[in-house]
């Protein structure tokens, strides 16, 4: 296992599912045997303001916060939140935005966040079945099939892009 810590920031607006997204990310990293830390600022956030959540995983993680300019991945759930958070990415870091997904292919519009997680997953070392386990555990069982479809759509689109 590499000693390098992987830094992910998820950004959006209050109520959009930022914290749910970081929850799934942290869970799958834990299942894969990494040390994980997840940090978020709640409170005023649920009143529609900007929200970011940090997930860091690796052999040993100290600070729970991703330092500015050191995010390997920035996952943005809301197009207006790209610019305010771009400074968090390291040079060469990967930005994933809703544009990465063709929403017409999704089982439901609200599965967009899960599809974005799928797109991110293609860059990360955790195996597909662990992602699906985390998705199953993180939502009500009735949402699983829809989420699985959306996740795989995102994952494949990202894999295809990397291959091309």
């Amino acid at each position, binding site marked *: 296992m590499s000693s390098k810590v992987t830094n992910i920031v998820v950004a959006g607006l209050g109520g959009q599912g930022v914290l749910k997204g970081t929850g799934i990310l*942290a869970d799958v990293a834990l299942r894969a*045997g990494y040390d994980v830390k*997840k*940090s978020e600022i709640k409170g005023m956030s649920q009143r529609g*303001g*900007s929200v970011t959540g940090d997930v860091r995983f690796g052999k040993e993680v*100290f*600070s*729970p916060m991703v330092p500015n300019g050191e995010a390997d991945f920035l996952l943005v759930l809301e197009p207006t939140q790209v610019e*305010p958070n771009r400074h968090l990415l390291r040079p060469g870091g990967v930005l994933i935005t809703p544009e990465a997904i063709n929403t017409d292919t999704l089982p439901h519009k609200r599965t967009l966040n899960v599809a974005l997680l799928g797109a991110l997953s293609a860059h990360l070392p955790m195996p597909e079945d662990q992602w699906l386990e985390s998705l199953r555990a993180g939502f009500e069982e009735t949402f699983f099939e829809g989420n699985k479809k959306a996740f795989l759509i995102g994952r494949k689109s990202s894999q295809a892009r990397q291959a091309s």
Partner: protein
Amino acid sequence: MKNGKLLSGDEAIALAAWDAGVALGAGYPGTPSTEILESFSELGGHAQWSPNEKVALEVTIGAAFAGARALATMKHVGLNVASDPLFTSAYTGVDAALVVVSADDPGMASSQNEQDNRRYAVAAGVPMLEPSDSQEAYDFTLAAIEISERWKIPVLLRVTTRVCHSYTVVHPGGSKGAPKAASFARDIKGRVMIPAYARLAHRKLRQKLAEMQEWNESCQLNRVVPGSEKLGIITSGISFMHVREAVPEASVLKLGFTHPLPMKQIIQFAKSVKRCLVIEEGDPYLVEAIRAQGVWVEGKPDMYRFGELDVPRVRRILDNDVSPEPTKPAGKPPQLCDACQYRIVFESLRKRDCIVAGDIGCYTLGVLQPFEAIDSCVCMGASIGVGLGMRHVLPSDQARRVVSVIGDSTFVHSGISGLVEMVYNPPPNGHVLIILDNATTAMTGHQEHPGTGRSLNHEPTNKLVLEDLVRAVGVKRVHVVEPRMGSEEFDRVLTECLNSDELAVIIARRPCILIVKQLKQYEQRGQNCECDPKGANVEQGN
């Protein structure tokens, strides 16, 4: 990492309290402390919201006097409210463990100040522990219980937003000692703080602190991470994590038991390294205490006293870099929900150019655009006193425009005394108090309070009826209005009250739109429940 659980610091404190058999947890909701009692309740623990932090601490003092382990939780400013019982409970001591959690908010993610409550440990003379992550939040809660029972004293568990709300891996080790059964043992000299007994108690407290300081010198809650002799860092809490990442090569003295401080160990460490730096968030608490011993240690430049520390800031402190920090692009600020019915209240206040003494809650957002209809916000409950003070001294044309605005939970927390003041010392032109009753403690995440008629776990209990209370205090002009978009009723009632020159209370009542679904479920649960709250002396049921 296998078998570890990913828990927030708050959840870890709750789990430790549960594992240690804490019999009663009480507090008042406040970011970032709220989830401790909610998690404790979900685990099966007996957890209660009190009207405010002072009452919560008093309830837990009672439990600890009676021989049961108790946990009081609050945000940093909540400890101001609870400071009265805190200071004297340090004198009385406790029979079983009492852990008081102060959740500080450096950087003010969701608070009105960034006070550093480590100062309270010194001022009150209570021991203090500071965890750095969720594992330590778990372990230190257990340690706090042990220390509390060994020295028969309340212990302050001081956490910060990043510890409370970060999720890190926890391996719960379980509690070593089982709690004893609650039983009352009379100790009049120890617990009745008349001056004659309090004088004895103060001496006893100082004796305990001296013993704890000696014990702390070899306590496992502090540890040295060996490293370079050139650079040593003394730190505590979340700062430790930033330090380990920013300078992995440094020697680090990581303090967990931070009052009374293990001074011999600190001095020995400081002398063992060429350059010794103290890295702490907030006030220069450690650095001042160490320098007072005549030992020179470097502190942080003053600019880093403001806000949270993080890895880049720690690097800057190490480099003594005081150049301006990069500014972060502005995000979208929070706001009153688009469909919030209370928007019309602020529109009415704005339209009349009212002078608005505001309070703490969602409605504080009425200060932002497009309303800009709040003129002051100091602390919980302050709207009423501040509004009255202005009414007393302003020329009457201005005084008549002064209005106090407070939420339901905040009113119960500490607005009731303000209301009594209003009736007792009425300003010449009367006063108008608006209670925004959205049936929940909304801003902190929709917790119950005495006015909702439901307890912490949403089960029915006795309900405080605000209009009955207001009338009982002696206010004659009391209106209950439903704020609705498109309705002129609130506006009309406000005009009437402002023109009356009398004391008036308007209760603007409509449940928060974000909890309409939950409220239906709670009501159904209440109807299906056969419980009959004892001592219910109210007209309305749940």
